[in-house]
């Protein structure tokens, strides 16, 4: 049975965050970029919901269900964002409680 070797720890350079980005393989966004993309998407859904409800109020809406679905999607995306944020804060607190 072959054991997986433990990779040696690489020193994390706080001064050069750009060096950390180079470590991620090409084509895969790092966590910050992924988070940024997800937040942009959530923002887009919120704006879409606002636009749809505005159209509804102005009497230009084609379908009621489109408005409801847009609002529901915005709500769900927001809840997902809040959950991700909760997890991040949880992880941060876990580390900050660490005994040194």
């Amino acid at each position, binding site marked *: 049975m072959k054991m997986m070797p433990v990779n040696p720890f690489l020193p994390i350079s706080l001064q050069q965050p750009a060096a950390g980005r180079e470590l991620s393989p090409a084509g895969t966004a790092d966590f910050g970029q992924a988070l940024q993309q997800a937040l942009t*998407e959530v923002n887009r859904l919120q704006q879409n919901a606002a636009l749809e409800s505005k159209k509804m109020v102005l009497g230009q809406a084609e379908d009621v*269900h*489109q408005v409801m*679905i847009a609002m529901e999607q915005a709500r769900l995306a927001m809840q997902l964002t809040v959950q991700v944020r909760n997890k991040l804060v949880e992880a941060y607190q876990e580390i900050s409680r660490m005994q040194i």
Partner: protein
Amino acid sequence: MQIFRAMQISASGLTAERFRLDLIANNIANVHTTRTEQGGPYRRRSAVFAESLQEARRGVGLPGQVGGGVRVAAVSVDRTEPRLVFEPEHPDADADGYAAYPNINIVQEMVDMITATRAYEANVTALNASKSMFLKALEIGRG
């Protein structure tokens, strides 16, 4: 977002069923219409739906196996003979005194309306199911 694909599919179903209900309402409203722009009595219209194809979702499933919902392919116009009613005083009556009325069976329209309403409800139920799946996924790791 990929996670909202099921909602988009249900939304297309809702739009399609609402469109079908529009046509049914139009058929019922025009049940006694003897004049149209094309001439002759109103002709019953019905929707033809087609599967809307989109690129398959990534990850699970086989490529091309998940469609993108439904779309209205065409509106077919009924070509059956109009219903002739003997009404000599009617302005649109022919030389023999028969007025041509649309060949619309109101009972059939009512049944179509019920199926459209139920199909709409089924799409709403599917949409709510996908929503509750999403909310359940958010509960992972909680509690």
